[in-house]
């Protein structure tokens, strides 16, 4: 009985984290899947959202900026607004150049943000991070608090999914596809390609910021490790590619599937002796990387391939 309750709680946490990764993959899908923007600064935007929300909602402390104790909705909104502003700045510099430059600049943003988190101790408590972040529904009894939070995450994912699906079917989405398929033709038709790219980039980053905010509230804690490339940026990329980029259902599927694999493999390796356990963590990263390479080479369209109106396409 005890054990099955533990498994029940584990599944809830698995689904909650999976849902937060689904937000990240949906955000990345707008950028990469639909617009072809190569963002490897996911961790950076995620961390920005996480810190903004954590600082705005947490109680007063001498260790870092805070004490605002604002409602969650303000924390979530603010995290989206701040990430949007920063994304806009990055986009201004990079979006007129080829994707490689965006990749370099976004990886730089992640690094800069890590430096700020570590150095501006007055605001962020440095490497020790922000703790005591309040969590929605935490006053409820277990497991109802967990279930309510999971429901909140899943509803958010569903809302994001429906909004993106609607946007894709709208004239805006059609222009987006046209730009990706044939940029010169879209330009010739008088479309402002830069503006559309910027919109996709900013919206994608806002969703990543929101995912960060959710994670900070869920874990009740955030530290500069959130900017770590492996577990955020890289995993999200693998999720999207495996699930099927340019397909929103694929993005969500990839997030839940790969998070389950990632998390289950952690449980398996944690049973090993300490020294081995630390080392096998690296084997996990290696295998995930290898999986990405195999999918890229052999199944570039992922589990749920993109649904296209017409079969012709030189993009993939």
């Amino acid at each position: 009985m005890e054990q099955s309750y533990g498994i029940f709680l584990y599944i809830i946490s698995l689904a909650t984290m999976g849902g937060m990764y689904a937000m990240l993959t949906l955000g990345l899908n707008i950028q990469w899947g639909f617009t072809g923007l190569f963002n490897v600064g996911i961790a950076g935007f995620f961390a920005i959202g996480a810190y903004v929300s954590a600082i705005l909602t947490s109680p007063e402390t001498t260790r870092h900026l805070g004490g605002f104790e604002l409602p969650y909705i303000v924390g979530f909104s603010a995290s989206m607004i701040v990430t949007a502003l920063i994304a806009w700045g990055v986009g201004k510099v990079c979006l007129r150049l080829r994707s490689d430059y965006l990749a370099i600049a976004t990886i730089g943003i992640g690094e800069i943000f890590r430096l700020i988190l570590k150095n501006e101790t007055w605001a962020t408590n440095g490497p020790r991070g922000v703790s005591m972040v309040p969590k929605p529904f935490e006053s409820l009894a277990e497991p109802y608090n967990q279930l309510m939070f999971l429901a909140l995450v899943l509803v958010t994912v569903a809302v994001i999914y429906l909004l993106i699906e609607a946007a894709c079917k709208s004239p805006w989405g059609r222009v987006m596809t046209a730009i990706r398929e044939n940029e010169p033709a879209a330009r010739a038709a008088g479309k402002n390609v830069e503006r559309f790219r910027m919109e996709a980039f900013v919206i994608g980053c806002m969703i990543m910021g929101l995912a960060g905010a959710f994670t900070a509230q869920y874990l009740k804690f955030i530290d500069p490790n959130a900017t770590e490339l492996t577990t955020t940026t890289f995993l999200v990329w693998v999720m999207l590619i495996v699930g099927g980029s340019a397909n929103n259902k694929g993005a969500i599927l990839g997030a839940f599937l790969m998070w389950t694999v990632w998390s289950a493999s952690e449980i398996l390796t944690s049973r090993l002796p300490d020294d081995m356990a630390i080392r096998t963590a690296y084997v996990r990263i290696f295998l995930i990387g290898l999986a990405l390479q195999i999918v890229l080479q052999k199944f570039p369209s992922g589990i749920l391939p993109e649904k296209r109106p017409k079969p012709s396409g030189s993009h993939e």
Partner: protein
Amino acid sequence: MIALMEFINFYLIPGIVLGSIYALGAVGITLTFGILRFANFAHGETMTLGVYFTWTLMQITPFHPLVILPASMLLTVLVVLGIDRLFYKPFRASPTIMVVMASFGIMLMVRSVIQFVWGVQLKGLVPGIQRPMVLFDTLRISPKHMVIIASAVVLVLLIHLLLSRTKIGKAMRAMSDSPELARLTGIGTEKIVMTTWVVGASLACAAGVFLAYDTHVETMMGFKLLLPMFAAAILGGVGKPYGAIAGGLIIGLVEELSSYPWIGTEPLLNPGYKAGVAFAIMVLMLLWRPSGLFRGRVF
């Protein structure tokens, strides 16, 4: 006078040392960008790998790192050529962003192999602290720094000879200028690509070993250099090896000089943000002149 010597000893010379390391690394980045046409995210890990090969060889032989360097360069080159064959070559005809993504994956794969094999704890390449040499009473320069600067100069000269005197070197520059025309001219792509990896990986290994010789051996050392190296390549102009050398020196110098107390007695920039300097320079360059100082390609 004392202030000047302090400036030279503690800011200028370290700046040149760091700049030489960036310069050597950035040549590989810029050649890969120009010839294979993609931003190679795994270049930092190539460096790290070279360092660990050197460290291992030093455990089993009694030689100085510089003596071992050619052997570890060779090992690094072999690994990089293997990676190219398995993970990059299938994408030669694909949109370049596929290779960028593959290289991003390789970055983490190589790093995880290093962490698995060698562990994450700090190691030293050479034990102990060396006493700096004092020249003209006040100029203090550590023998390590002299070795690094002198070796870097030799390597830069070798690159220069390769690129300006040999047929394959000229063909590399030609392909970096225009891959399509190079093909129409009968320059075989694969041979040039192989040479690019050989040159890039050897220099990356050397740069990594110089850094480890100056500081220590660590699994994230290459990744930390990735951003300054990209910045150096963009600053110098993508595809321009001479530009990358200049760009690397400039970025290394600016990074070190940014914490000099130019105004008042406080460092101009909190040293904690040193690593952000390269990024700032890169962003300014992309805004002002994306083709770089040496008029490289803009994609």
